[in-house]
């Protein structure tokens, strides 16, 4: 301690210019250190996590049908049921034709086209679907059908409607007016007929007049 005091005394006697210069010197301060950066980093990370999770939930988590949808069907769709393999297990047959309407007859011709599809639909919410010449345009997998929500009574909703196009926005939407085309949604018969409600494999068909 004595040596340090002696050093202190000696340092006291250094020249004026050192003393004044040290006081006048203005450090190049970039950002004042206040120890808050950890807090702000934590808040930013938490916000990023929330936003990321929200995005993931909105885009990658399946949205199951509402309670009303489930109640309408005989059984709720099974999440574990293989969406692609099921149709291959039993060959699809033409779906039962709605009793009335022009489309009823043509539906029988169009329905066999369903097995040609890979059952991996590219249908996405908000996508516009155009049907031409009675070809099967879209096949929904079970998960996709569950996501969009199936109508309680598909037959009655489709029957007699003449949509030219179908806008898929998460709910089935069938315009009541339009050109003389006809659209039907048909369940794979060996997995469940229209009224079954157990299986949600759908084929969208358009029939030209």
């Amino acid at each position, binding site marked *: 301690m004595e*040596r340090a*005091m*002696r*050093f*202190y*005394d*000696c*340092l*006291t*006697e*250094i*020249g*004026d210019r*050192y*003393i*004044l*210069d*040290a*006081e006048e*010197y203005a*450090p190049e*301060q*970039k*950002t*004042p*250190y206040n120890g808050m950066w950890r807090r702000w980093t934590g808040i930013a990370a938490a916000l990023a996590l929330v936003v990321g999770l929200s995005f993931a939930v909105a885009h990658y988590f399946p949205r199951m049908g509402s309670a009303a949808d489930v109640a309408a069907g005989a059984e709720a769709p099974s999440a574990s049921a293989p969406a692609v393999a099921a149709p291959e297990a039993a060959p699809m047959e033409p779906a039962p034709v709605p009793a009335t309407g022009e489309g009823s007859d043509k539906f029988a011709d169009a329905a066999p086209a369903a097995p040609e599809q890979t059952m991996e639909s590219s249908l996405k919410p908000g996508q516009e679907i155009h049907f031409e010449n009675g070809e099967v345009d879209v096949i929904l997998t079970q998960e996709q059908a569950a996501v969009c929500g199936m109508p309680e009574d598909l037959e009655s909703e489709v029957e007699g409607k003449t949509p030219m196009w179908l806008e898929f926005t998460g709910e089935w939407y069938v315009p009541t007016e339009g050109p003389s085309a006809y659209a039907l949604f048909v369940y794979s018969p060996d997995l469940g007929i229209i009224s079954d409600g157990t299986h949600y494999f759908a084929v969208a068909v358009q029939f030209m007049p």
Partner: protein
Amino acid sequence: VEDTAIVELYWERDQQAIVESDRKYGGYCGTMARNILKNMQDAEECVNDTWHRAWDTMPPQRPVSLRAYLGRIVRNLAIDKWRRGKAQKRGDGMDVMLSELEGCLPGGAEPEREMENREITAAIEGWLNTLNREERAVFLRRYWYGVPVYELAQQWGCTPNRMAQRLLKLRTGLRRYLEGQEVWI
């Protein structure tokens, strides 16, 4: 008021010198005293003693820089007060007695020691000259002005740990320099 005018007032034995000194350098001296003593009351006494010491020493002294001159007085008074306080805190009768006696001894009785101190001071100045301006400012603000490390860190916009590392590096450099110059304290 210019420094030269204040010095003139001291030389003219005008009490206004103390008033002007306090007005211009009261904050500066007070901050330095507080940095060293860490006690508001002691620091205030130290500043008042500074004006009296300046009054006693001018004349004959005529400092070129009044700021540096008053700063030196504050440093010397502060360290003396600190030593006395330390002796009293220890409660050791011998410490207190020696501390009391030290005050009545005539100064300048150790010419050899003073000579050595001047050599040490010259060596310190030599080392300061090897530093750049920024490093010099860091060292002197800490060890001459007694600025706390956290405050220095704020001034330089870095963490206190980083500033402590910087000071350690400077002290190590000083030690090597003094050893190289064969200056022993």
